[in-house]
């Protein structure tokens, strides 16, 4: 089985936000919730870099560790998913997440947290693959159809890579070697406790 990862090549990202749009459209993500976003560092200054960030599907995921109701599970592809039926919207996964991935729809009085929503790596949830219930709660299940996450598939500069960690790391290494520079695999050290030597 593959160990699925995301890798954003910040030296290629042009902050077009196509990944953000593709994600919102593919999963019909409600207003106010962003499973993926593009963050620009040093905006307008020398050394400006944009990084597309979503749930990194961490090794030994902190969200899963702190969840009071244990609603997270890791698939055979190492994708971190959760059950919205079990989630109580306490916000703990958000405190623990290094990437700000968990999102909460504002429901009820005082805008209290609803069921958590986050990037599923286009792999749905615990319901039957491709079912209506799964789509309503988590969005499309592209992985079950043999497809990779749409954000990476749609990336116009092929900055955002999704797939088996070893393969995308190899692609990134080759790029860095060819062009002679690279700002690294953003978030890998935090998420996977390893980084790509370049």
């Amino acid at each position: 089985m593959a160990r699925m990862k995301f890798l954003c090549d910040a030296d290629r990202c042009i902050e077009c936000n196509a990944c953000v749009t593709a994600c919102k459209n593919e999963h019909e993500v409600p207003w106010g919730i962003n499973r993926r976003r593009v963050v620009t560092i040093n905006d307008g200054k020398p050394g400006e870099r944009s990084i597309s960030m979503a749930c990194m599907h961490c090794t030994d995921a902190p969200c899963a560790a702190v969840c009071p109701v244990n609603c997270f599970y890791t698939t055979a592809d190492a994708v971190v998913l959760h059950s919205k039926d079990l989630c109580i919207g306490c916000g703990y996964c958000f405190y623990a997440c290094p990437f700000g991935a968990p999102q909460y729809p504002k429901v009820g009085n005082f805008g209290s947290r609803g069921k958590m929503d986050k990037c599923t790596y286009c792999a749905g949830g615990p319901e039957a693959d491709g079912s209506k219930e799964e789509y309503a709660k988590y969005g499309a299940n592209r992985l079950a159809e043999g497809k990779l996450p749409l954000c990476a598939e749609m990336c116009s500069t092929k900055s955002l890579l999704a797939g088996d960690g070893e393969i995308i790391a190899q692609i990134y290494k080759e790029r860095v070697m060819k062009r002679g520079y690279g700002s690294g695999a953003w978030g890998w050290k935090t998420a996977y406790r390893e980084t790509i030597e370049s």
Partner: protein
Amino acid sequence: MTSFGRFIRLALGAWALLLLVSMAPASAQQVNPTASSVKEQQLLQELNRIQGRVSIPDQRSGVLEQPQGREWREFRNVTLRWIGGIAILGTIAAIVIFYLTVGMVRLESGRSGRTIVRFNAFERFVHWLTATCFIVLAISGLNITFGRPLLLPLIGFEAFSEWSQWAKYAHNYLSFPFTLGVVLIFLMWIGGNIPNKVDIEWAKRGGGLIGHDHPPAYRFNAGQKMIYWIVVIGGGLVAASGYALMFPFYGTGIEGMQMAQIVHSIVAVLFVAAMIGHIYIGTIGMEGAFEAMGSGEVDVNWAREHHSLWLDEQKARTGPNDGQPQPATAAAE
């Protein structure tokens, strides 16, 4: 002449521009694009978080990475469970040992049959409002910390989530009457709870629980004053930190919420431990004590043994032979 001059200027300008444009790529090739580029590890070392600009409306998502969640996770899953477990189980163990060895603190002179008003109806209402809220808040709060290892394996995922969902609602909504109760407790009993010299003597003689000694005390002895300040300060801290968590991003960022959770949970488990002690003394720990918050009237002998100075005060106000002063005077104290 002027048109020729303008032509010259234009030609010069165009030439200069051409020169600049043609030079730009040449110089760009010599610039190392990584020289000024940002490095993730360097940024994390400098600020312990990486933040930038986002073009989506949710500006808070501009925080790209902040790995402090790791320390918070360690606290929440390990440290807090040790602190809470030791504090609460330790208190219960101490009480059980104390009860088995010393037992209930009896009324030494027996009951006189005459009573004196200790807490009026409003005071008792505020006490029980706060107390019932506290018990629900404590159970639902402990469920968040200890439910997953202790209760979830017993009742299963669905039932545990259902219960935890309702517990969360109860925790959020009952925080409001609880906070009101803490504020009212602070205001209505502040007068009797300022520490004074009598408390030192009371503490030196081990209070009323140890031995058969009955050191003098006004309306509240040093132990009760301690409970009062635990409720006021602890309650204030849990309320403030709790609202920071309940209303995310109103005034605090993600680190602020991690800190708030740490303060909230540590104060809360210590609070629970203290209240277990309070409940013990108020019920099976001391004969005649529960009546103070039950009916509101305590036996005069109980008042003499545990709050002699207060009884003297009450008697002075209402006449020496009257054991039943008016409720209004009791409340004023």
